[in-house]
């Protein structure tokens, strides 16, 4: 090897390797990539949502930074910076994707919750309706009880009159002994009984009266019918004199049609000769025979 060729060789080698020694520590692309990286790093959500992609971006950034601090070529640094930049973008997109997927998962949960809420709401409404029905039933029961108590109170007040609670309502029977012998009019005892009824009726203004006349089977039925009507009429007149309005009174003579016992003995016949006063309910209603 001669001197000239050796010198040329040395020069060639130096020229080949010298490119490295003059490279700058950074490039424009590396600087902007570092800024991007900084922004992504400042958002902890990205590392949370896309940890793998973020680690790849970290690694790529380290490679680019190392190339710069090792004074490698501008081209080498830019290549690595380019890759780092893309990996940073990938991490950002992956985080967005994960975030959207979380929303989708939550949407399912939210929908289930909504469905549950709706069921609860429906149950609540159903319960409200049931409660209202129960309340209405209770109110109705209270009303019924009040009505019964009123009837009971009325029958207590009429106890002196030996009033009886029957299917048709409160029935007061004025027996034959309260009438004058062979007379359709009441005797003083009868008037006294009737006065008690009239007093009670002053308080209980809602009640109307049905006055029914009955006889025994002695004599003709036409006569008996007439007799029963006249007795009923006499009771009605007496009550009107005691202050009970005519409008509250209905009369009916039944003659011998409805005996309370057979007419075989004098005692039984006496029981059959009677006037019954039926008191209506609060609404003024009476069940007719």
């Amino acid at each position, binding site marked *: 090897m001669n001197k000239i060729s050796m010198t040329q060789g040395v020069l060639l080698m130096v020229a080949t390797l010298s490119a490295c020694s003059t490279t700058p520590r950074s490039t424009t692309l590396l600087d902007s990539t570092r800024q991007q990286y900084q922004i992504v790093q400042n958002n902890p959500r990205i590392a949370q949502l896309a940890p793998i992609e973020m680690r790849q971006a970290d690694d790529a950034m380290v490679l680019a930074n190392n190339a710069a601090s090792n004074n490698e070529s501008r081209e080498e640094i830019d290549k690595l910076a380019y890759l780092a930049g893309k990996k940073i973008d*990938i991490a950002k997109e992956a985080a967005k994707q994960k975030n959207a997927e979380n929303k989708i998962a939550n949407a399912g949960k939210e929908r289930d919750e909504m469905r549950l809420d709706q069921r609860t709401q429906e149950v609540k409404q159903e319960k409200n309706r049931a409660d209202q029905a129960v309340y209405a039933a209770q109110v109705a029961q209270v009303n019924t009880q009040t009505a019964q108590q009123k009837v009971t109170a009325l029958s207590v007040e009429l106890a002196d009159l030996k009033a009886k609670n029957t299917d048709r309502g409160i029935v007061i029977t004025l027996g034959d002994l309260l009438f004058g012998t062979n007379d359709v009019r009441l005797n003083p005892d009868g008037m006294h009984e009737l006065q008690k009824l009239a007093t009670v009726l002053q308080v209980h203004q809602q009640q109307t009266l049905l006055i029914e006349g009955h006889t025994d089977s002695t004599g003709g039925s036409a006569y008996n019918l007439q007799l029963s009507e006249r007795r009923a009429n006499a009771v009605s007149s007496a009550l009107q004199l005691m202050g009970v309005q005519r409008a509250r009174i209905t009369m009916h003579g039944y003659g011998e049609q409805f005996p309370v016992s057979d007419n075989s003995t004098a005692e039984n016949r006496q029981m059959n000769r009677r006037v019954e006063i039926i008191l209506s309910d609060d609404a003024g209603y009476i069940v007719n025979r």
Partner: protein
Amino acid sequence: MLTAHPQASNLLRLILASSFFAYIFTISACSNLQTPATADVAVSTSAVNGAAAVGGGEYAPAEMRSAREKLVQANTAMAAHDYQAASDYAAQAQADAKLAQTKVSSTKAQQAATALQEDIRVLREELNRVNNK
């Protein structure tokens, strides 16, 4: 002169020889790059095709264009036996393609989420209307 001293001359020869080996070693790295570069280009081609298949052209057109350009440059470099450049372009094409693919998935997921939330909003409105009757 360097040649005046035989010992010095020997020392110089030694330095030159070792420098030459170092030089050869540095340069020789390039000649073994063909196989990995071929693999890099193949992987990148597949990544670009994959991104295109899921709708990269529609959802991330800029990234797809960049990926395809880089892939063309990688193939050009391969043809010119510049394997280092081919690997570099292939790596860039792959990064672009991966970004495009991620953007596709991300956009689709965001669209789905928005649609679902809108559905839920409408449903809630409807239920409120029914419940407040």
